């Protein structure tokens, strides 16, 4: 089996595992059976199209085709402008956007929706459709004012969380280091899911959700809708003259520092910056790796702090430079053993061993390390599932079955539950 085929098979197996855990949610066979037995046969059994009906249908289709030619206008995907300090530029799908200290960056979409990044926030519009957009918020505070339309489809990804939006006004604050999310609703309704929220949780106007993935805690508080709506929620216009962005609700999340009044704040499209960090932020990992290599990758690791070490490891991993990735993650664990990110580095090492090197015993050791260090961490479910899978693949059936019992006890409907049941012969 070639490398490409193996990569595809691994990816496909992962897709299948996740799908298998959700099959009953996607199609309830009990209801489908009832419907089939009640309606499926009689409706279809005697169904014969009359020739006149066929002729009428053909005529309708012909008329429809004429109308289509006359009236058809393909729905165009949304587009957006990036506005900062009064100047604007066309936004590009896929590029990262960041707001420097003391500035706000405004994204103005063609359907009238508006997304405002507070200072020090980073986000990316990953996909534009005719009815909405998919956005990733990497960190920071973002205000959203999504124009409500019947077919609106907007989605927000914030680390392990997702927010599904139709039309509404709300604010989010995502702190990836602390793995904390806050969603504060002003109007409308959204669905929040991910991390400990196994089922999508609706939020309505006036509600504030605070979730900590790290602590496995969710708190939803209600405030009078008017109180939040009445607050001055406007993100400062990107000309920088207004007050800096602040969330309208009290929160234990660290507020963003106020900007220096005289400071010039300009929107910064991260696209042509020379450092490995900026290139990585753009998603150009090969160039980012090359930039880090130009500085001497391992020298850069020796100089780097914990955050940069994690970044260097990720850049090398995404660029396919596995030895350097392992070096960076290893350095992180050696020099910062008490930092939470040391456990995340263990998880990353496990993924390299499993996904890219096919060393399943080694993968099991690293997944086990993560689980020992962060038994309730945000990656614990995935780590335990893959620990079980690693043991299974390495031939340690006794260990795999023990892991399966543990997994099914904690996550009975998790993505690896089917493998767990198979291992236990259920």
């Amino acid at each position: 089996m070639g490398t490409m085929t193996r990569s595809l098979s691994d990816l496909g197996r992962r897709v299948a595992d996740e799908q298998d855990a959700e099959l009953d949610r996607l199609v309830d066979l009990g209801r489908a059976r009832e419907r089939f037995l009640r309606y499926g046969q009689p409706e279809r059994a005697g169904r014969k199209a009359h020739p006149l009906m066929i002729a009428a249908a053909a005529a309708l289709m012909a008329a429809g085709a004429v109308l289509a030619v006359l009236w058809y206008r393909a729905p165009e995907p949304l587009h957006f402008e990036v506005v900062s300090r009064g100047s604007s530029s066309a936004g590009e799908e896929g590029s990262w956007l960041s707001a420097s200290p003391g500035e706000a960056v405004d994204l103005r979409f063609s359907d009238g929706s508006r997304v405002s990044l507070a200072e020090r926030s980073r986000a990316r519009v990953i996909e534009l459709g005719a009815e909405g957009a998919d956005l990733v918020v990497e960190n920071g505070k973002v205000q959203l004012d999504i124009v409500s339309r019947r077919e609106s489809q907007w989605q927000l990804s914030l680390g392990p969380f997702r927010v599904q939006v139709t039309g509404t006004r709300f604010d989010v604050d995502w702190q990836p280091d602390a793995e904390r999310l806050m969603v504060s609703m002003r109007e409308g309704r959204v669905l929040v899911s991910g991390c400990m929220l196994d089922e999508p949780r609706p939020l309505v106007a006036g509600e504030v959700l605070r979730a900590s993935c790290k602590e496995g805690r969710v708190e939803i508080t209600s405030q009078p809708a008017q109180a939040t709506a009445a607050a001055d929620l406007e993100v400062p216009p990107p000309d920088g003259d207004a007050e800096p962005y602040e969330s309208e609700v009290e929160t234990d999340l660290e507020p963003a520092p106020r900007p220096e009044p005289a400071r010039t704040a300009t929107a910064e499209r991260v696209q042509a910056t020379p450092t490995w960090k900026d290139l990585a932020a753009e998603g150009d990992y090969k160039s980012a790796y090359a930039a880090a290599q130009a500085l001497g990758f391992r020298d850069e690791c020796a100089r780097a702090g914990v955050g940069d070490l994690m970044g260097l490891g990720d850049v090398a991993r995404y660029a396919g430079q596995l030895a350097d990735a392992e070096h960076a993650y290893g350095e992180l664990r050696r020099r910062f053993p008490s930092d939470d990110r040391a456990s995340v580095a263990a998880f990353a090492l496990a993924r390299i061993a499993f996904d890219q090197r096919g060393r399943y015993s080694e993968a099991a050791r690293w997944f086990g390390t993560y689980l020992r260090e962060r038994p309730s961490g945000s990656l614990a479910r995935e780590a335990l599932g893959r620990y079980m899978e690693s043991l299974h693949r390495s031939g340690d059936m006794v260990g795999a079955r023990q892991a399966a019992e543990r997994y099914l006890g904690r996550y009975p409907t998790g993505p690896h539950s089917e493998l767990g049941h198979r291992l236990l012969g259920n």
Partner: protein
Amino acid sequence: MHDEAFPGAATAAAAERTGVVRHLPIPDNDAVLVEAIRAGRGGAAAALFDRHAPHVRRVLVRVLGVDRDLPDLVQEVFVQVLESLDRLQQPKALRGWITSIAVFVARAHIRKKKRQQLFRFFAPSDIEEFVTAPDGTSHSEAVRSVYRVMAHLSADERIAFALRFVDGMELTEVAAACRVSLATIKRRLASAQRKFAEEARRHPELVPWLSGGGRWAQ
């Protein structure tokens, strides 16, 4: 007391008194099942569904991913199976026959969706971007991205790709499910792999999966 200990006893006795016809269970055998359906035996359609619905559901999910029409499509497959069963020459091959019908139903659905995207103004409320729609599942971003990328393949390529790599079917099984030759399936897969690799580079969530092999990273 007796009724409490054996709750079904009184009901069974009543049924005997009123002469209810009881169907014997249909053996766990596809050839017998096909004969039972052709003979119009009571309970045969239910047995068909019970035995093969999980497989049909899995095939549809593999090919289509998250799609709100999945329950309708499962029903559609079984309706078509019943309608076409007379053409099945080898009753033992029922499972493969059902798989191929599921594949054809999925293909028709993909094509219908693509047509709807072209003529969206006809019924905008009925149309969802079936790859990116909010789906209420806990699927990872990587899994969602896989289906976003697969949306760039033709219907035939997408089916071959999904059955081979997501469902893990052997090449011969994929060819049989699509009712084409092995050579055709190999061509479709080669084209699907190339397009998938090209498009997947735009999705950072897939990079770790794809950068493992040298050819992917090119």
